[in-house]
């Protein structure tokens, strides 16, 4: 399982690097999907199969399809690639890279100072997840559902057909 975990992490990192360096948006999205799949595999290796399946279903399966759908609708073509190239010269990466490096160093220091209580990964059954969600974390679940409801109402409002005005 450890090997699988590190392999999946390597794939995830490589795929994510590919995501931010691709000029073609659809290719970038494909790598993002790959990255999400790798993350799902990491969850699986860590003993959380339920989250792994949800990661694939919800993130890689549903949300990313929507992204692809929207990008297909926009039909960018070569012009989009050229625009990406103009907007993303290598020097644009310097700032975020430095910030990310600081975070990484921070993380490494914290990990070094505090030897993790990693222990053996323990398989969490779906039942345990649901008990946790609807037990101690009920409030969070309700908040999230409230947020989704707000999103739903907003989407309905945006997509609503305006009633025809009388004096038009």
């Amino acid at each position: 399982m450890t090997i699988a975990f590190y392999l999946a992490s390597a794939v995830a990192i490589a795929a994510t690097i590919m995501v931010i360096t691709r000029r073609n948006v659809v290719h970038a999205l494909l790598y993002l999907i790959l990255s999400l799949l790798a993350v799902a595999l990491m969850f699986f290796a860590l003993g959380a199969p339920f989250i792994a399946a949800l990661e694939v279903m919800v993130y890689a399966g549903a949300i990313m399809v929507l992204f692809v759908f929207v990008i297909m609708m926009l039909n960018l073509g070569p012009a989009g690639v050229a625009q990406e190239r103009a907007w993303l010269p290598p020097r644009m990466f310097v700032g975020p890279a430095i910030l990310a490096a600081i975070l990484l160093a921070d993380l490494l220091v914290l990990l070094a100072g505090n030897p993790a209580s990693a222990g053996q990964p323990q398989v969490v059954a779906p039942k345990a997840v649901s008990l946790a969600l609807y037990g101690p974390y009920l409030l969070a679940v309700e908040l999230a559902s409230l947020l989704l409801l707000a999103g739903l109402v907003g989407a309905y409002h945006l997509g609503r057909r305006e009633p025809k005005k009388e004096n038009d």
Partner: protein
Amino acid sequence: MTEPWRSLVVIVGVLAIALLVIMAQVWLERRIIARWQDRRGPNRVGPFGLLQLIADVIKLFTKEDWTPPFADRPVFVLAPAVVMTAGMMSFAVIPFAPTIGIVDLNIGLLFFLAMSSMGVYSVVLGGWASNSKYSLLGGMRAAAQMLSYEVFMGLSLAGVVALAGSFSLRDIVEAQRHGWFIVPQALGFVVFLIAGIAETHRLPFDLPEAESELVAGYHTEYSSMKFGMFFVGEYVGIALVSAMITTLFLGGWLGPWLPPLAWFGIKTFFFMCFFYLMRGSLPRPRYDQLMAYGWKLMLPLAMLNLLVTGAFLAAR
């Protein structure tokens, strides 16, 4: 036999038999639909035309494998592989018999749903990468259709999961020892069946292909084995959805007298034939009708089913 070797044999065996069944379906479908149309269907190549599928495969292999110059090459090649892979992967969690089955995941059902949501990509990306009008239209239709129907495909199964108390397909089959779930979950069964047809984009919900409107939809630009893989992927979908219906609603391998594998085969065969019957008799709905059925009829039905099941379980 040692454990790894045994699992390897099972994996290869299941893959080989699944592929064989899928290929045989092409022949079966043509024969059965011919029967329903008072024709005879393919009966020239070999006994009862059984070698027709071999002839077809040879034909597909030897056709020109053409990639259009305007296509997005890597994605164009990747798309047909995804549908095959996702479909075949799902067979890993299906319990064919008490001792036959590749893996018994405790999230087996979710794995199936995850793989079927991966299958959407092949159609969408195939349509996009072909870089032609009809392919793009097919891909867009596929994206919206499969995404919507996936939602209540999952929801319709929630009732089964609630009754069985597990995501493991093996546990779900065992839970049906005293009555198949098709009786208490009749509504869920209907919703899953319809969502399954839409998910495999078979007729009557074949809007992504829709020969009479979009040439061949998302695989207009595909030829040779790349087309063959889309073609096989569709039949993988039929076999998969039939096997899932069998497992989830009809008690899987359970049944008297006959061996478990035979029961599984008979039930799956029945649903495959039902798929062909749908193809042979129903007209294709309009696109907005399809989406309206989905969101305004199927979703409330699936919700209602879950609600009633939940109330029943809570009361018990």
